[in-house]
């Protein structure tokens, strides 16, 4: 019996030894293969110049207050980031921003490789200086129209009456809250321009008498105080877009786009991502011209007087 045990022990020892040698051989083989193949590069990854994909995300619905901004819920952001990482095969640095002004700076400095933008920022991003290309439509709101509101009891009857008035606007970069109202106020000297983060804050400012008129988007819920519209802009508001930086537009971005299209069903509904639909650049053209025109003017500062003056394009 002892002899049998010895034989079994010896057999086990040999088996273990052979297994270890097998593992060593495999390691050796993997070393040789790795040295022959060099650095693996799938060629499918879509990364920015610094090795990561920098993604900007702005709520496509401009001027919502923070409490109604579903896009910035934790789980939404995390899932969205995972989806982008899978599509790009690259480390994703997602930057959700509430401020269109900050987003505008990011786009101007080309600090994003990919961005999901509302209409105003899309028009800004497509300017030659920013150099972004539109890839997909973000169709969220098609009832937007830019207006200028005053209290129903206000003495202001026409737009021209606002000369010397105090105006409330959204931050630079907003289409219905900044570019279009300013475009329509061209030629007026304003006593004060005050910025707010959202339309609710603007309405409160109007109600509290801190401003005489405010920018407004007609797609917002009806105002809680009696108000009157001095003017409603006639320009059709196009949809937002997914845009790609000039550098990445030269790379092979089609697998990334296909992956996004394929997973569009899992994308958050608030984003309004429309798979396979290219933005209509013709439709964006008038808006792009307005944004370009307003951007070339001197910009108003918060709580400062401002004369709305500059070369105005007729569109």
């Amino acid at each position, binding site marked *: 019996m002892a002899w049998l045990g010895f034989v079994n022990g010896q057999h086990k020892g040999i088996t273990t030894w052979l297994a270890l040698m097998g593992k060593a051989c495999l*390691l050796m083989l993997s070393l040789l293969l*790795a040295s022959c193949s060099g650095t693996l590069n799938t060629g499918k990854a879509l990364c920015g110049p610094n090795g990561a994909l920098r993604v900007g995300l702005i709520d496509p619905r401009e001027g919502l207050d*923070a409490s109604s901004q579903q896009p910035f819920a934790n789980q939404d952001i995390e899932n969205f980031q995972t989806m982008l*990482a899978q599509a790009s095969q690259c480390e994703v640095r997602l*930057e959700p921003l509430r401020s269109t002004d900050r987003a505008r700076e990011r786009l101007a400095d080309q600090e994003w490789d990919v961005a999901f933008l509302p209409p105003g920022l899309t028009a800004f991003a497509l300017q030659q200086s920013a150099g972004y290309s539109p890839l997909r439509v973000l169709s969220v709101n098609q009832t937007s129209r830019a207006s200028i509101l005053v209290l129903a009891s206000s003495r202001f009857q026409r737009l021209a009456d606002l000369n010397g008035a105090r105006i409330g606007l959204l931050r630079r970069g907003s289409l219905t809250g900044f570019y279009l109202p300013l475009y329509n106020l061209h030629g007026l000297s304003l006593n004060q321009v005050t910025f707010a983060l959202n339309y609710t804050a603007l309405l409160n400012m109007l109600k509290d008498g801190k401003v005489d008129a405010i920018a407004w988007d007609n797609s917002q819920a009806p105002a809680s105080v009696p108000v009157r519209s001095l003017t409603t802009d006639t320009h059709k508001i196009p949809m937002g877009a997914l845009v790609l930086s000039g550098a990445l537009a030269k790379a092979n971005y089609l697998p990334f786009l296909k992956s996004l299209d394929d997973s569009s069903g899992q994308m958050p509904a608030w984003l309004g991502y429309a798979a396979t639909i290219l933005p209509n650049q013709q439709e964006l053209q008038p808006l792009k011209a307005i944004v370009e025109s307003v951007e070339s003017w001197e910009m108003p500062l*918060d709580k400062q007087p401002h004369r709305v003056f500059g070369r105005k394009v007729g569109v």
Partner: protein
Amino acid sequence: MKITGLKMFLGGDGSRPLRKQLSLTLAVVFTGSILVVILLLDQLFGWQAKDLINQRSVFFMDTMLAVRQYTSKQVNPVIAPLNEGGGAFRPEAVPSYSATTVFEYLRGSKPEYKEYSYREATLNPTNLKDKSDTFESEVIASFRSSPAQKVITGERNTPLGSYHFVARPIKVTSQSCLVCHSTPDRAPRSQILAYGDSNGFGWKIDEIVGAQIVSVPQNTVFRAKRESLLATVLLLAAVFSAVALVANSILNRLILQPMRLISKKAEEASVTPSTVSFTEKNRADEIGQLAKSFERMKQSLAISMQMLKDRQKP
């Protein structure tokens, strides 16, 4: 039986020339040695690669901490007043902005840094890009539940693969942090206009609000290990090959050549013993002993042959 067979194979059973046997034995022994070395070094270099990455990560975090302090003490007092108005918010006054921006420059400075990523993940950040995800929130929660813990390292699985990470807590230590992070009323208006008034507030002194996290793809760890291992194995193979060649040459010069000479002389001696002299008998080594034996055998043979001749005389 198998072990005996292996012993015979390695030790030689006389079926091969010595030189061939030596080469074969050395090849088997050296290959076995290399495989054992691979197994051991695979573990060792794995630890070393991780250790190097951890050291580098801690160095990065120390550097970024220094950048944060510099920003807090020297840049913020200059820039912060500019943010009081309603103009554009200057993020250069914010320590975390400086740290992450400097890291981006650092990352671009050397190819070996490119795989590292640095985040200042925060539970309730001003800029939502710094918002901690579920995994990062768990790391921060660990720091908050055990404040004595200074570093956490580990592995993290992501859709892009496994990452090795090193994390350290971010603690609110200065009152100046609370200007932007206590209540929206205290925060500069430009900050509110840039980032809103709903996040990044409610921080308290000595509270752990986030974590510095340096991440590296596990592939980088494996690659560093593989490169070290491959270099060592190639070096060992080169050294063993040189040893085998030298051993073979020594065997040839010390044993095989003299033996071949003695063998040739012995053949001659078997016919004409008087004409052959085993000059190697003067050597003190085993070849000398063999030559002496052959010399004695030659002399015995000569005597025997002489005796045989004498008997045949009439």
